[in-house]
């Protein structure tokens, strides 16, 4: 594959074949707890798309220009978390001040995903896979969209599930995990198309 196509390939792959939630099982806690309603899932999904698409390139810059020059790659865990937390905090404050509707639909979820492992995971994969800045951005954006698709699909299923008879022992997170497993298998159907590693 030519390098110029790389960002788009990664973008596509991170949505379908390498879906961060369904292949890596990252970001599970908020996925399980918030996927009850389609409306809240949409809000949370949008927030994840936004945060992943912005923090991944941001972390790329910090990693390339601060950590690599001083041979501090091993500090990336701490540094990425600090950067993500501060950025999310700033975004929340800005939204709360300047855009009431956006804060209502999206901002309220931001504190929830500050410490989401999927967000940190995307930044760490970006380092391991040695992406460029542009690819990192598309990887973050794609992973966010992938997570978004997974959670709204799950919310849709769970809303239907309200009418279903579930064995008492499986109610709540139990059945959700089982469904997530099936969804992951369904997404495996995409895996022949393109692979990221």
């Amino acid at each position, binding site marked *: 594959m030519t390098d110029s196509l790389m960002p788009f390939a990664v973008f596509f792959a991170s949505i379908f074949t390498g879906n961060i939630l369904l292949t890596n099982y990252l970001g599970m806690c908020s996925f399980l707890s918030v996927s009850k309603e389609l409306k*809240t899932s949409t*809000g949370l999904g949008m927030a994840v798309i936004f945060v992943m698409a912005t923090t991944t390139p941001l972390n790329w810059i*910090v990693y390339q220009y*601060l*950590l690599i020059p*001083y*041979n*501090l790659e091993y*500090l990336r865990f*701490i*540094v990425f978390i*600090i*950067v993500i937390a*501060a950025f999310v*905090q*700033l975004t929340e*404050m*800005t939204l*709360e*001040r*300047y855009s*009431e*509707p956006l804060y*209502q639909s999206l901002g*309220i979820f931001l504190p929830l995903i500050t410490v989401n492992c999927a967000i940190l995971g995307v930044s760490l994969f970006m380092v391991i896979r040695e992406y460029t800045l542009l690819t990192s951005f598309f990887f973050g954006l794609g992973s966010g969209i992938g997570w978004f698709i997974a959670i709204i699909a799950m919310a849709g299923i769970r809303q239907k599930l309200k009418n279903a008879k579930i064995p008492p022992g499986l109610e709540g997170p139990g059945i959700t995990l089982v469904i997530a497993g099936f969804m992951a298998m369904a997404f495996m159907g995409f895996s022949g198309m393109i692979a990221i590693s």
Partner: protein
Amino acid sequence: MIVTLLISIGIISLISVFLAILLVIADATIGNYGVVKISINDGSKELEVQGGQPLLKALNQEGVFIPSACGGRGSCGMCKVRVVGGGGDYLPTELPWISDEEKEKNVRLSCQFKVKQDVAIVIPEELFLVKEFKTTVESIRDLTHDIKEVRLRLKEPAEISAKAGQYIQFEVPEYELTDERVYRAYSMASSPDDKNHVELEIRLVPNGICTTYVHQHLKEGDEIIINGPYGDFFLRETDKHIIFIAGGSGMAPIKSMLLDMEKKGITRKASYFFGARSKRDLFLLDEMRALEEKMPNFSFIPALSEPQEEDNWDGEVGLITDVVRRMVSEGANSEAYLCGSPGMIDACIKVLDEVGVLPENIFYDKFS
């Protein structure tokens, strides 16, 4: 080696400091809403507070206490306040607690609603009387195997003005069952006349945060913070006959009302039905008998649902609802005051309805 260490510490600090400064600047600019005005009850009180904080907290700082059990995390839904001006849209975190009816009245959850501009709110007048009290535990005694009486002496302020039957909120400090302060509501059992003291009757609930604290950790001499008084469960001033019904620690507000009646010389006909399982769940019998002596129109009727053989019980037997059904006459000319578990109260309301007590004359304090 040392150099690498210093460099890594330096870089981490650099990033942290940079981000911290960024956040501080943002907090002072974007997050700074300046001083905003809160106008309470059509301007009968005006407060100036720092904007951007939750309404509950802002009011708290100014000494206006709104009842809240969870301490502002949006999980109890108690701290509702009517915001009539400067409200804005509902937040998703408020919606689970707000009914359609309340939406029309602009009722908001004050721990979630942030004051960003001048607002006008409406709160019940008596909340102005609510204060925070520093108290010392004067005595703790066992009333039954699972109910303790805690007597608190008020230090600052030293006096509370409450109506008999009202409740206070007890602040539980951080301990092994909770990593933050929580508040639990308890009715006052003491007479409102005794302004320097507050008595509580607290029943042990397995794994209850406050009840475990009181039963296993609280000692005489400990300092406890309470706030109050709250509630509209108090004796109405009419000539109707009074039916008191209580179970377990539901004794507390009724006892307070009785002491108050005795003090004020109220001679209305009053019957007090107290339900318990067996004799070991009964308490304060001597005090009740003494009140019967002093108040000729008052009778105390304890009833056991499962008397044990060794109890030698010769009083009423049966569920409290059956006893009430059997013994109440002149329902239409009676007022009922109920305190106890939701199950007991719901069952009693049904029975009171059967014996002719009008719904508007039934008052209750449900444990939740």
